[in-house]
């Protein structure tokens, strides 16, 4: 039985060596006043078209738009939500990548969709399902500064209400799969009840779309099997940065899907084919082929373009072999 392959979200923006990096050039031109926002959108549309084509050519079954219009998973939403300002640079988890931290200075309120147009464009381009990606409320809150709400809980739930509207709009636009990213939860097990409630407010708004709770950059052992109380259809784990996640996968309820991150999205060394084959076979043995989906360990933006592409090709070809 075939084994589904997917990506976790981001894809490198720079082109292959020697090709023109149009988005970067256009952003520079925009800063100088030599380009318009429409020029930028055109360059981004072109990039989305390319990254979807590359994922399809590599043999990935469920693709994303590569999140190439975004700098990270929180600021593109924060810019559209009332109450937020964008603050100073901070390290993105344990990567040599930095993001601008959102600051909530007022009530957090929905002002219209942030990601729906982007989803529609990608769905139009792709010849297979496109997964929409949104931040989870706990990670969104923890990656931001709360200067408005009396406590963390109120802040998380206010964000959850806005994200619930976003998810409902994505579903209405036809998104068959919505992934909710909660990487911050791994380092904040005390927020598990908040995650159950906050993510539940999002998935409670949905009737058709399949939902995935994605974690990455570490293991979820401090959360334990409580993570499966979060009401989503599937769970994503990073088995490269968190090899111990295999124990949680073994303990997952039988009706939950597993998105297993098995190719290192943060190092260029290409995985050995036979080792990868062994990993997929082991996972099939644990969860069966129907519930399993295999992916890189996190978003691929941490790699140069050619390396990311080579990793996807390897992942897809080995998964195909095991699933044949």
């Amino acid at each position, binding site marked *: 039985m075939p084994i589904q392959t997917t990506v976790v979200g981001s894809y490198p923006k720079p082109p292959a060596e020697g090709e023109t990096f149009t988005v970067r050039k256009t952003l520079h031109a925009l800063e100088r006043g030599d380009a318009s926002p429409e020029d930028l959108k055109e360059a981004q549309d072109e990039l989305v078209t390319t990254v979807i084509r590359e994922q399809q050519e590599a043999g990935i079954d469920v693709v994303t738009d590569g999140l190439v219009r975004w700098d990270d998973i929180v600021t593109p939403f924060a810019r559209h939500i009332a109450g937020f300002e964008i603050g100073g640079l901070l390290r993105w988890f344990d990567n040599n*990548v930095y993001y601008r931290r959102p600051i909530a200075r007022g009530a957090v309120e929905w002002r219209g969709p942030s990601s729906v147009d982007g989803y529609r464009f990608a769905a139009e381009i792709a010849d297979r399902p496109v997964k929409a990606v949104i931040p989870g409320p706990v990670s969104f809150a923890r990656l931001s500064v709360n200067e408005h709400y009396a406590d963390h809980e109120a802040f998380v739930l206010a964000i959850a209400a806005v994200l619930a509207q976003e998810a409902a709009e994505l579903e209405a636009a036809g998104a068959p799969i919505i992934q909710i990213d909660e990487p911050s939860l791994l380092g904040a097990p005390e927020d598990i009840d908040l995650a159950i409630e906050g993510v539940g407010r999002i998935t409670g708004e949905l009737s058709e779309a399949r939902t995935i709770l994605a974690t990455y950059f570490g293991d979820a052992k401090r959360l334990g099997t409580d993570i499966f109380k979060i009401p989503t259809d599937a769970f994503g784990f990073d088995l490269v940065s968190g090899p111990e996640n295999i124990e949680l996968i073994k303990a997952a309820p039988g009706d939950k899907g597993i998105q297993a991150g098995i190719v290192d999205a943060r190092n260029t060394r290409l995985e050995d084919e036979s080792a990868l084959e062994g990993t997929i076979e082991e996972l099939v043995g644990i969860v069966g082929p129907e519930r399993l989906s295999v992916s890189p360990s996190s978003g691929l933006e941490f790699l140069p*373009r050619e390396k990311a592409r080579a990793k996807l090709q390897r992942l897809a070809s080995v998964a195909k072999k095991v699933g044949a």
Partner: protein
Amino acid sequence: MGNVSLPGPGLWTTSVGSLPKPDYIIKARGQLARKEIEREELKELELKATREWIEFQDSIGTDVVVDGEQYRGDMVAFFAEEMPGLEIGGLVRSYGNRYYRKPIATSPVGRDKPITVEWWEYAQSLTDKPVKGMLTGPYTICDWSFNEHYATRRDFVLDLARAIRDEALDLERAGARFIQIDEPAASTRMDELDLVIEAMAIVTEPLSAHTITHICYGDFHRAYPKMLDIPVDQIDLEFANSDYSLLDEFSTDPFTKYVGLGISDVHTHAIEPVDELVEGIRRSLKHIPADRMFVDPDCGLKTRTVEEAKEKLTNIKKAVDVVREEL
């Protein structure tokens, strides 16, 4: 201060490392990338810019001078390009619309010739003040590179430590009395702070120069006081950027080393007025004595304009002069 000494009661002024590149360097780097000029032409301009920055620092009375790193693109790639075992990889993003070429370790990493000594010697020939030797630390080079060769990060870091130690020894032999080993990545993972310490011990153990490390962009509150175990004489930290919140920690666990007191935010165009800088130094003197204190901007100034950097450095010097009168 190791085997070195500086005149006066303390509160010496310095810079963290990088200084802005003048427009003529930026233009020439673009021309070189498009192969419109030769490498030698750019080098002439880098020498000129270095000369100008040394003259500027001398003119405002800076105590410990830097060469300004006019010849560097990126603080890791500059070393990686010269070190066997490291290759320059493809573009990856660091933030916003900024990208860098991330090195890849493909075989054992080492050093077969001096990397920074010639630039240090040139800079020192231009001034009577001590010029800092500037190195990127082993942990940061590892953390900001891909690893296709080593089985563990520790193996990679320790090979790098031996290479950087050799470079530091060459700087010392050339006459450097202040050697800074930057570890901005040291605040990334608290569970690897022991590895940062182990690697730094390899670098600094044979040195008699005054050793400094610069750490930034992190959650210092988690790393303190453990960071005091990093075997250097001085730790350089950003205070302005965090509104001096680290000083609270010093009440509980006293700061036991020389400090590089960063009092000017390098991520803002705004030039802090002298009064504000004076106030920052006064607050800090409640926790660290003047004869253990160097004063500088939060971080390298390379993202500012030349004019902004000069104004910030001038105001820091003016603020130090005000406070020195009060000692």
